[in-house]
């Protein structure tokens, strides 16, 4: 085949993200869609996810799985490598995904630590729990719907009731963002560490909740 067309440009402008990593998680190549994702999500997070699904031998593999990175969601991915130094992924975007919005007028000023304390007092009203907190004292109040946040943390803490100790970390997530109303916002990351976590699929608008091994990670838009 002798094409005059530059195939790399087709890849470059494709809406499906393509990212090639070195075997130490460095980004070697990415198209525009890939670059867009990595302006919100850390490359390490994508790398750590794809190596879990990589084919055992040289080759390419389609994975039918929902890959969620913050606000991005994909239905499946092509993961593969033709040498042992590089690994690549191409995500296939969910064409039905909508632009996320939030009604800024309806948001209320919230102290996240107060909400966490309220949810704990409520959830563990009949139980003594040791709480270890890693809080950022300089964190300003955020703007969100307080009813939703209280319900969210009540529900999540109730899934951790089977513990004697819970560690809570609150920080601004570095290198990841969420796009709401076509505006990019930082993310507030709240990580609850506990040995016994009852996992449950939770859906709260504009909030990402991930149940991982011995921790729950909650990402909220950091709107101040």
């Amino acid at each position, binding site marked *: 085949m002798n094409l005059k067309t530059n195939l790399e440009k087709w890849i470059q402008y494709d809406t499906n993200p393509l990212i090639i990593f070195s075997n130490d998680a460095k980004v070697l190549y990415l198209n525009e869609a890939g670059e867009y994702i990595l302006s919100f999500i850390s490359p390490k997070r994508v790398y750590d996810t794809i190596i879990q699904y990589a084919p055992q031998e040289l080759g390419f593999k389609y994975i039918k799985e929902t890959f969620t990175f913050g606000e991005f969601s994909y239905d499946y991915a092509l993961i593969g490598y033709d040498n042992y130094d590089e690994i690549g992924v191409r995500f296939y975007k969910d064409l039905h995904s909508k632009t996320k919005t939030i009604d800024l007028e309806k948001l209320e000023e919230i102290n996240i630590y107060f909400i966490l304390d*309220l949810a704990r*007092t*409520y959830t563990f*009203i009949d139980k003594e729990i040791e709480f270890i907190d890693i809080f950022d004292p300089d964190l300003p109040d955020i703007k969100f719907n307080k*009813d939703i946040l*209280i319900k969210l943390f*009540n529900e999540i803490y109730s899934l951790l009731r089977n513990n004697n100790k819970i560690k809570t970390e609150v920080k601004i997530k570095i290198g990841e963002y969420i796009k709401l109303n076509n505006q990019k916002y930082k993310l507030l990351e709240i990580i609850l560490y506990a040995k016994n976590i009852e996992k449950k699929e939770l859906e709260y608008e504009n909030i990402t909740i991930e149940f991982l091994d011995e921790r729950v990670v909650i990402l909220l838009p950091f709107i101040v």
Partner: protein
Amino acid sequence: MEFIAVSPISKKIYKLASMLRDMDVNVYIYGEEGVGKSFLAKFISPNAILYNDKLKDTNQEVIIENITHIPDNFKRIIATGNSPLFGDLKDKFTMQIELKPLNERKEDISAFYQLFEAQAKQELKIQKEIIPLKNPKNLHIIKQDIYKQLLCNDYDKNDIIDVLKQFFRNHYTQDDSYNSMLKLFDKALIEVLLDKYKSKLQVAKHLKINRHTLTKKVNELED
């Protein structure tokens, strides 16, 4: 408003309620009758008014007792009921707080007695020592007991006759005999004197009746 919180669970309820004062979210409080639901509702939202059908100003904080439906989009609703909510009604509330029965927070009972006793004495202008019940079922019983003890203390014979008249009016039936009514008198008198003199011999002596007669009466009262 004095919030009684001696038991560990009540201390946590107090902390939660204090925090909720600053959060204008809807709260539902449930528990048995006489556990303090209305008081807690008022504590959480001191400016709230009691809801009625005619209330139209939705810019109000309202307290709805024994809620069955959400009437309107009021600024804030604090509702009470006897059991937890489910479904759509539950979703209207950010939190559901259960107030436990008094027998699950016995440490609070003595403090409730002290509070209600002081209030009752001030209202009635009667000073008298109150002997608390050991296991009052709820706060209504405590209040009733305090008022009863304070009022009974000042009764004279005419008051007792009035009380008995009211009792007979309300409770006398055709099945009650003269003797069964007299047993009320016997029971009150013998129980108090046994408590005072400790032995039946002494009681019989003071009442100027035969000891066997007294024993017979005591046995009858126990049947």
